[in-house]
């Protein structure tokens, strides 16, 4: 048998033949389906948005004039500029308690793909910062992919003095992409003392209330500024990729408008989150009190957290929800060194009517622990005995319990029996 050599016939038929074979084999199926036309107003039409038009500062209008492939647009917003219920000046005041407002940069990017990875370009980098007594929104637009190095140099300059980065979902999405772009361009990525990603507090404060924590929903419901005629995020990569081919710069205007609106919403949401977390009980907006309690508890305001959790208890009907909040409440009481507060809370919960389910058994277990600490051994035994009877009932009729809950109940039964044995011993 001779050594295998690929025969010329299989490797290099004419160019057209290769493309024809690729078509037949169905290669390249990940290419974009012909994008649907952008269904939003073009420049010149009225765009219902809070953002005023930006001025193109460093480029002419025709694509040919964009010598280095980067277009920079800038817009300013005075303190009195309102976006829904909120004004820029108030928002910046709420944020500025650490005194680093001058070194804070808000950032939002638009990209060629939503999955991440090194093949994803950030073709528009929007920045907001304070300057000259107003909020400046600056946008770096990549007019040609080959202009990326230049865009990154400008970005590095702008970020050079910043200490604090603020984004919405930037920890997972925007910033890793920017970091990757810097590495690919063989430049050093900027670094910050802190990166605040508002998606995490926003989720705690509003997800359960609004059923989502998307920026556009928060903008409408929290800031009171619903967006009209906005280009949907999933259409943006397609619009830009089309632009790369036909260089119709006007097609990008809706994206620039969208990005400016996102940045403004980011700053104002940051203001709202700061204001709420400083004094949540008087915030005057609909909040998920459980999530709010967690956030203020993390900032050390345990007394406020306790009140937040009590409000959450008022809203909670499902036994599972009540059990979850109660555990947090008990932890908060312990954090302020008030074990008795925790005990009272468990007793109160056990005293109200509850379905005899596993959550009631959990509550009774806690009551038993609290009573034991109070040396009320009889009382503790009563609570454990009731809990055990519930658990045994559940285990006998396990038709509805499968997997993890069933295993949890079994573990609970073991714990209760062990506890009962110890109590009986102490009781004599």
């Amino acid at each position, binding site marked *: *048998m001779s*050594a*295998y050599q*690929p*025969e010329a*016939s*299989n*490797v*290099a*038929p004419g*160019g057209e*033949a*290769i*493309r024809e*074979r*690729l*078509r*037949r*084999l*169905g*290669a*390249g*199926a*990940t*290419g*974009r389906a012909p994008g649907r036309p952008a269904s939003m107003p073009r420049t010149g039409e009225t765009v219902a948005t809070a953002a005023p038009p930006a001025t193109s500062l460093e480029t002419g209008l025709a694509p040919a004039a964009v010598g280095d492939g980067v277009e920079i647009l800038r817009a300013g917003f005075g303190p009195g500029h309102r976006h829904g219920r909120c004004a820029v000046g108030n928002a910046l005041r709420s944020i500025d308690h650490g005194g680093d407002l001058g070194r804070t940069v808000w950032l939002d990017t638009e990209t*060629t*793909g*939503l*999955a*991440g*990875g*090194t*093949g994803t*370009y950030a073709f528009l980098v929007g920045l907001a910062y304070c300057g000259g007594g107003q909020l400046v929104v600056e946008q770096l637009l990549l007019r*040609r*992919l*080959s202009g990326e190095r230049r865009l990154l140099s400008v970005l590095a300059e702008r970020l050079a003095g910043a200490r604090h980065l603020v984004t919405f979902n930037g920890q997972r999405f925007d910033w*890793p992409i920017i*970091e*990757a772009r810097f*590495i*690919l361009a063989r430049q050093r990525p900027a670094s910050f003392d802190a990166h605040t990603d508002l998606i995490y507090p926003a989720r705690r404060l509003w997800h359960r209330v609004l059923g989502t924590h998307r920026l556009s929903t928060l903008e409408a419901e929290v800031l009171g500024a619903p967006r009209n005629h906005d280009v949907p995020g999933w259409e943006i*990569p*397609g619009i830009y*990729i089309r632009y*790369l*081919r036909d260089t119709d710069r006007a097609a990008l205007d809706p994206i620039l408008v969208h990005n400016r609106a996102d940045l403004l919403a980011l700053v104002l949401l940051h203001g709202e989150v700061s204001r709420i977390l400083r004094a949540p009980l008087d915030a005057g907006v609909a909040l998920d009190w459980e999530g709010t309690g967690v956030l203020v508890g993390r900032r050390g305001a345990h007394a406020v957290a306790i009140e937040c959790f009590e409000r959450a208890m008022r809203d909670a009907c499902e036994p599972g929800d009540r059990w979850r909040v109660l555990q947090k409440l008990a932890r908060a009481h312990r954090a302020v060194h008030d074990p008795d507060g925790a005990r009272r809370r468990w007793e109160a919960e056990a005293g109200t009517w509850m379905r005899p389910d596993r959550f009631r058994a959990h509550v009774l277990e806690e009551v038993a622990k609290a009573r034991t600490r109070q040396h009320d051994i009889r009382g503790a035994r009563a609570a454990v005995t009731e809990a055990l009877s519930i658990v045994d009932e559940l285990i006998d009729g396990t038709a509805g319990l*499968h997997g993890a809950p069933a295993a949890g109940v079994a573990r609970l039964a073991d714990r209760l029996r062990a506890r009962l044995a110890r109590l009986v011993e102490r009781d004599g």
Partner: protein
Amino acid sequence: MTLEQILDAYRTRPRFAPQFTAWRTFPAKRAQFVEFPETMDPRLRHALARSGIAQLYTHQAKAFAEVRAGRDIVVVTPTASGKTLCYNLPVLDAILRGGGPRALYLFPTKALGADQVDELQQLIRSLEVEIGAYTYDGDTPGDARRTIRTAGHIVVTNPDMLHTAILPHHTKWLRLFENLRYVVLDELHHYRGVFGSHLANVLRRLDRICRFYGSAPRFICCSATIGNPGEHAARLLERPVAVLDESGAPSGERTVAVYNPPVVNPALGIRRDAVRESVAVAEELLKGRIQTIFFARTRLRAELLTTYLRDAARRQHVDPEAICGYRAGYLPSERRTIEAGLRGGSVRAVAATNALELGIDIGQLSAAVLVGYPGTIASTWQQMGRAGRRADRSFAVLVATSGALDQFIATHPEYLFDQPIEQARINPDNLLVLASHVKCAAFELPVRDDETFGPNTLPEILAYLEEEGVLHHEDNAWHYVAEAYPAEGVSLRSASPQNVVIIDTTEPRPRVIGEIDLPSAPAFVHEDAIYIHLGRQYHVDRLDWDERKAYVRQVDVDYYTDAQIAVGVRVLEEFARERDAAHGEAAVTFRPTIFKKLRLATHENVGFGTIHLPETTLHTTAAWWVFPRARVPEMGTDALQGALLGVAHALQNIAPLYLMTDPRDLGSTVEIRSPHTGEPTVTLFEEIPGGVGLAERLFALRRELLDAAASLVEGCGCEHGCPSCVGPVLELGPEAKRRALHLLRDVCVPA
């Protein structure tokens, strides 16, 4: 009874002795040791000494020296010859020397990677130096991934993860790529066919990324014995590789035999069933408490074997639970239990498919029984190598089935011992494979106009991808601009990454018992099929094709099912033709038609049913032979049809002797009047989309294959045709054998 006594019994008892067509004994081989290399870090020497290694085998020392000299190597030595030290020693030595070098270990499967990382960590622990060696695969938790990316000296992963998770995010792996000094490719023989073709392209991508970060890693490869390790490695790496194939490891005396079951129907050429006969042979081994591994070619056979072996175990008063099956489709946890049972000795016998052929650590067994020729000489030796102890005697036997190739081997056993082992083949330049990796490469870094990536077709592929909207050309480079993450859509293992999930609904709570790859699903889990899993029979109640789910129920019936698939072929383009033979690109359609119910043990037909499933199409490469009508005017249509089927049967069965391939990687079909050639035609096609070069090779061997098929038919002992040559006489007619031979010898002239 000892193994010696059992072997004596085989050679003397009239029930078995006449059936052995070959019996060869290979003498024990003594270990060849050398001292530790002077240059090796003393800490490493001490750690080895502590774990009982005072000297190295010659091949380990040679590997160390070659790698130190900066050469790429491939180590080709038998199972259990201490291959892992061939790469662990130079890698750990380099890390101990400092400078922060890193290494990437690639194993074909997750299980093998996990095995190796355990062994590696033991060695590192005895070094008492902080060296991070981590597995990075689909099961690695998110928070651990960050640590591995920044702190892992040795990252153990598989080609799939490199392809989908590491290369497309290379900026996060900056530290690894900047300092990458070694890449270890173990089980190199596994990377052939479509998998190897993909891997070669993944390595082309790895090379681009390393160059970007300024590193140039050396490759340390290990392989089981194949005919062309150096060439194969060179083809994968696209540069010359030094071959180290002299093992210094010891081995005990081994006996290798070939066994042909007795003929029960001379007229029809029917021999006793190989599965039953293997169990009869193995009963002696069971009785003697000899730990034995059985290899079956198909899942069905592995399951039947398990069933029969358990019956035999009961007769020999061996716990039937000590007999296990092992094949694809078992859950990973089930497999781990069986592997541990083999190492620990609680499993006395295992009936496996080639799922166990790879380097999975199951310890050293005393006997191996191959039920049917595994398809290649290389995998025959690999499977037989599972039996082999460093000091004691071992036994391996191939039990021939009635299949054509098996009968050829059983009657020409010298072929097995004297023929060079097959060569591994890949085709990294398969257009479909290449194009999909060009796409991935562009995603990772823009492709510059002056770059090369494989063959000279790159500009055309780039232009095509731009037409498709995947790439955008600007400023002397091609940029990826599609939204989708390209690696997700490219499976390295096959063209269809999907599996059908098999769900048991016997109990009120349904549970998943296994999976089957999509192309195999119509044959195995069509509605009313009997699917066998862990030795139990399941009836397929429903196959939800769109949802990829098969719902099954446990049953106890006395039959199994065998599906019939109608195959059609359409030639799309002819690449080359020499008189009556040609090869090219083809569209092959598969239409499941009926299934037969066959009684267990007797295989008699007890009924049939219709399969209602959609037709599927495969774009692939094919080779075909033309038998001009005018040269056989005497044959009627039926006669010709039978003869063509006989030719196809013989060709398809003999072809694997010349290609390192699983018999199932080739399909065949015949046409009385092919729309493409206009003549009676026999086509062999590759089952892999786009093909991996097998068809081209078939074309190159067009004359040789016809001659080999003719001598197969001529040399067969049957009268009128049998499954060992042209196929069953009942299906083809009594004259088919003579006519097929006529077609092979006189009618087709492939230049």
